[in-house]
C-alpha cells in the first residue's frame, strides 16, 4: 500500500510540474490551471497503475518499463484530444515529457517506494 500511495503522490507532483511548463506556451497560457490539474490527474492515474504493478512485481526493470509504457500510452491518448479552441495537437510536448515523467515515476517507485516483505517473519 505504501508503494501505491507513494506512486500516486509522486505522480501528482510530477504531473503538476509537467503541466506548469504550459506557461511557456502563449497559446494555452490562459488555461494553465486546467492543464496543471488534468496533467496531475493523468500522472496520478499512471502512478496508481505503476504502484499496483510494483506491489506484485518486485524487479526494478519491469516496474520502470511498465511506468514508461503506461505513461506514454496515456500521454498519447491525452495528446490525441485536440485543443477545443485552436484544434491543435501537442503530441511532441505531451508525449515526450510524459515518457520522461513515466521513467521518473517508475524509477522513484522501485527505488524509494519502500520495500515489501514477500515472506512474513516468523518471530
Amino acid at each position, binding site marked *: 500500500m505504501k508503494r501505491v500511495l507513494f506512486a500516486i503522490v509522486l505522480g501528482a507532483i510530477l504531473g503538476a510540474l509537467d503541466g506548469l*511548463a504550459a506557461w511557456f506556451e502563449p497559446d494555452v497560457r490562459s488555461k494553465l490551471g486546467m492543464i496543471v490539474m488534468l496533467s496531475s490527474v493523468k500522472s496520478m492515474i499512471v502512478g496508481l497503475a505503476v504502484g499496483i504493478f510494483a506491489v506484485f512485481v518486485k524487479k526494478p526493470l519491469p516496474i520502470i518499463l511498465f511506468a514508461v509504457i503506461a505513461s506514454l500510452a496515456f500521454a498519447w491518448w491525452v495528446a490525441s484530444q485536440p485543443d477545443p479552441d485552436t484544434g491543435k495537437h501537442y503530441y*511532441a510536448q505531451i508525449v515526450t*515529457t510524459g515518457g520522461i515523467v513515466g521513467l*521518473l515515476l517508475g524509477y*522513484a517507485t522501485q527505488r524509494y517506494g519502500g520495500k515489501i516483505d514477500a515472506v512474513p517473519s516468523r518471530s
Partner: protein
Amino acid sequence: MNWLSDDALRRLRSAAGSPDLSGTRYRLLEFVARGGMGVVYLAEDSVLRRRVALKILDPVASSPGLAARLLREARILARLEHPGIVPVHDVGTLADGRVFYAMKFVEGRRLDHHLQQIHSVPERLRLYGKICEAVAFAHARGILHRDLKPENVMVGPFGEVLVMDWGLAKFLHRQPEDAATLLDESPAQTANDTVATPAAHTSDSSVHTAHGSILGTPGYMPPEQARGDLHLLDQRSDVFALGALLLYLLTGNPPSTSSPQATLSRPLAAICRKAMAADPASRYPSASDLAADVARFLDSEPVSAYPEGLFGKAGRFISRHRIAFLLVLTFLVVRVLLLLVFRR
C-alpha cells in the same frame, strides 16, 4: 663425490626437519609457512578425514616461554568462535615435546595478494567491514590482536575473510582464571616485549625482540605499542592498525609509504586519519565505530570523521540519488529544448 642427487638431499633435509606426528591423529602432508614462533604444516586428521593446518612450535626457537605462548594463542583462538576468525580444533604435544595446535586449513589467499584482483573501492570496503567485524568481536571478548596487517588476513574462495595469527594477542582485562589457566604473559615476558628492535625484522615483516617475541609490524603498530607502553594498549591500538589496513586497502601501498591525503576522497582520508591518530583519545573508540563510519561512506551518508560543508552535502546528495537527479535533469533539458523548438 656426490653419493646422493640434489633432489634426494633436498628430500632428506625436508624429512629431517619435518615434525614427528606419531602418536597424534594427524598425518603430515606438506609445509605451508614459517611464522615468528611456529611452523605451519598442512596435515590430515586421520579420524575425521579432513585437512587441517598444524601450527607447531619452531624447533629452532623452541623454549618453555614460547611453548606457553603457542598454547595461549590456541586458547585465545578457542575463545573466539566467529566466522571471521580461524577456528582451532585441537591442542597437543608431539613426541619430541613440542606444543602444537590444529586449526582450520584456510584455502584462500592473503589479503595483499587478493587485492590484486579487486579494483573496486566499494568491494574493498565491504571486505574491510568483515575484518572490522572480526576484530570487534575479539574486542568484545576482551582480546586485542596487536598484529593486524594484510599478511594476517586471509580471503577464502567465497569471499569469506579470516583474521589469522593471534600469536601476539593480549587480554584487555586480565581475569583471575586467565592468569591461572591461560598462561598469560609473565612479568618477565612483558618486560622482554618492550625491547623491540627494528633491526630484527623477519621475512613476514613483523618485529621480533631479541627473545623472539613478535611485537607488531612497523606502519601498522600504534605509537604506544612501538614505544613499548604495553599498559596503554587497548582496543584503540587495534583501531590504529585497522586504519593502517584501510589505507593499504585503498592505496595498495604500505602505510609507511602512503599518506591519507594522497589519492583518497576526503571522507575516506579523514576516516584513515582519525583511525591512525597518534593520540589514542582522538581515534575511533572501537572497531565497530570505525566500521560504521566506513559503512556510512559506502551508503553515501555523512561520516563522523569528516564535517562537510554545504557543497559537500549537495555533492553527496546528488551522488546518492544520481539516477533520480539525472532523470530530473533530463526532464528539464527536454522541456527547455521543446520550448525552444516550438517557439520558432
